[in-house]
């Protein structure tokens, strides 16, 4: 059944709605995050980091709250600078150890010595949908994604899929559970264990230490993650088709691949993305490879320059252009762009150029990946780019700066339509509505300094406009990201609506508003 809305401007004003009451009073450093994928593949949970030990989850389909984990054991001192983020495409990965059929197979050991219960992978928190699993076989050259509908228990479960894969995998095939991780950074003195992840599917904390070298010596002031996750695509794009659909290769070298794009590309337009091989029956071992694009040519036949392939794809390979899976961090009053490479488990500050001015309290940042392809393509000059991170510096200023990933340069103190009074400091936080098709994924919503005032920032037009005020004043303004995105997805008609969710500063109340216009 399709979803239809009949909102009339001016007649029908947006309304805040109260939600369940949090079990802990919001305080400095506490932060929300959620899965912003634009399909039912997203986990319908808002995660809420409240201390070095506790991660709560708010189930936005059921309006309920519980502890997801109460022994995180984060090193450091919880406070200003703590932050969290969901990387939805990152989950347990490994190989198949047995294959009964194209819809039933056994997984290699799950991470963190996790031992799951019967059918745990067949029911995510919040709904009756199982986790999506991606399987690719380097002996067949194919890849497919299905939902898990049943599993046995233990560390090496046998899973049953909702339908048969398009191929029958061999026991050497790879699997990737697209169930997501919650990455968490604590505040205080940098030490081993200050940065950890919570694996959503197995509900475990990493047992192998994550890197902490190259993080700030002391994490404080304020922090903000940006997830350049490969599952984050335009609001009108289909999962696993990336930003521009599936593209067929026409040629390749050891450090390049030439693909046919559905639209004319500008030179360097695809730099900052990754190219992922989703099928290659010509060179079967090439399937599943990901490479960050370092150069791209103009036109519809685009040559992508990449780091050397492990297996050079054939001229018949099929690829998608996606976000590059970098986890970007702004933090601790620094100009640095801290970048975490999930594959290498390393932090670096040289991946991206440093911004022009240090960040302060009230720092906010996001990548406008959800802007619809229709809007993007309508401007052949690409005045708007997906490969950008828009960030307000905080510290009591109005400053907006934009990191261009395709040139690795900053536009510092960008001119944008706002008022001199619209400054951002302690208590300011932002959530990007990446899914609303009615708004073409253009808006990020901002709570100013934990007051009742809200704005929404149009990433396409670089303007700020007023948004519906909250009738209830918040309490003491503290540092921490208190907004998150809940989404309604109608898979029958493709309509998607974003709900901005807010934890009131220094209170237990939670409110939500539909981005209805």
């Amino acid at each position, binding site marked *: 059944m399709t979803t239809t*809305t009949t909102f009339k401007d001016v007649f029908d004003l947006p*309304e805040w709605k*109260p939600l369940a009451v949090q079990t802990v009073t919001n305080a400095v450093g506490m932060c929300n995050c959620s899965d912003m994928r634009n399909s039912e593949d997203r986990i319908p949970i808002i995660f809420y980091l409240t201390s070095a030990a506790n991660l709560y989850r708010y189930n936005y389909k059921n309006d309920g709250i519980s502890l997801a984990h109460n022994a995180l054991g984060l090193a450091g001192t919880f406070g200003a600078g703590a932050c969290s983020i969901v990387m939805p495409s990152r989950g347990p990965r490994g190989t198949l150890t047995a294959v009964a059929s194209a819809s039933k197979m056994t997984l290699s050991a799950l991470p963190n010595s996790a031992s799951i219960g019967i059918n745990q992978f067949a029911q995510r928190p919040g709904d009756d949908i199982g986790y999506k699993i991606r399987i690719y076989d380097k002996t067949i050259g194919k890849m497919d994604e299905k939902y898990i509908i049943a599993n046995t228990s233990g560390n090496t479960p046998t899973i049953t899929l909702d339908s048969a894969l398009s191929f029958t995998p061999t026991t050497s095939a790879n699997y990737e559970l697209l169930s997501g991780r919650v990455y968490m950074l604590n505040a205080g003195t940098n030490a081993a264990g200050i940065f950890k992840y919570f694996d959503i599917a197995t509900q475990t904390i990493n047992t192998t230490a994550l890197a902490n070298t190259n993080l700030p010596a002391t994490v404080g002031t304020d922090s903000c993650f940006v997830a350049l996750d490969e599952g984050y695509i335009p609001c009108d794009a289909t999962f696993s088709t990336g930003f521009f659909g599936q593209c067929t290769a026409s040629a390749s070298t050891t450090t390049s691949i030439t693909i046919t794009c559905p639209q004319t590309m500008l030179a360097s337009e695809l730099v900052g993305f990754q190219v992922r091989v989703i099928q290659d029956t010509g060179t079967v071992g090439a399937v599943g490879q990901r490479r960050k694009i370092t150069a791209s040519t103009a036109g519809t036949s685009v040559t992508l320059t990449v780091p050397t392939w492990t297996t050079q794809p054939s001229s018949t390979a099929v690829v998608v252009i996606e976000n590059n899976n970098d986890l970007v961090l702004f933090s601790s009053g620094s100009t640095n762009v801290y970048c975490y490479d999930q594959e290498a488990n390393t932090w670096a500050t040289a991946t991206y150029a440093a911004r022009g001015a240090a960040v302060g309290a009230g720092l906010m940042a996001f990548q406008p990946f959800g802007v619809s392809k229709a809007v993007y393509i309508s401007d052949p000059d690409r005045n708007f780019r997906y490969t950008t991170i828009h960030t307000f510096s905080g510290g009591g200023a109005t400053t907006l700066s934009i990191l261009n990933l395709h040139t690795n340069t900053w536009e510092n103190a960008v001119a944008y339509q706002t008022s001199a009074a619209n400054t951002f400091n302690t208590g300011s936080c932002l959530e990007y509505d990446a899914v609303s098709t009615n708004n073409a994924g253009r808006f990020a919503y901002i709570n100013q300094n934990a007051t009742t005032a809200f704005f929404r920032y149009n990433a396409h037009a670089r303007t700020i406009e007023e948004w519906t005020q909250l009738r209830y004043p918040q309490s003491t303004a503290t540092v921490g990201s208190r907004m998150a995105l809940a989404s309604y997805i109608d898979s029958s008609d493709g309509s998607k609506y974003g709900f901005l969710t807010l934890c009131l500063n220094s209170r237990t109340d939670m409110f939500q508003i*539909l981005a209805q216009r």
Partner: protein
Amino acid sequence: MNDGIVQLNTDGVGKKVDTSEITVGSNTVERQRINISDPANPDGHAAVELPSTITGAEYGVVIRGFLHDVAQVLKRPLDIMSRSLSLAADPTSGRLRTLTDINSGTLTTVSTVTTCTSLNQLAGYDARQTMLYSLERHNWNLNVRSRIT
């Protein structure tokens, strides 16, 4: 302390003066006992006694300064109370305005509550949830949900 007398001149059998005989230094001396009396009233003698009750009929020593001070001390709080009460009085009706802090008990009837700064509970339940937020949810359903089919 021994009793003693000072012998007056004898006139017939003679009169005696009532004294207290005490030692002062190396001498034993007689200290004369006296009454405090009204200069005109032959019956006005100050009493030194141990009555069970004060009747008000007793004669006593007049200590004007002390009594004046006591009167002033007693009058001061009365003046303060008097001023406060007159300020709190409605000039038209003469009714006193008061701030009442009801810590416990029951209010049977309240006609008008102009401002209620805080109302934490209603029927024993969180007033914010049961009143304000339920109303907000109702508004949302009315104004937003009703536009979605």
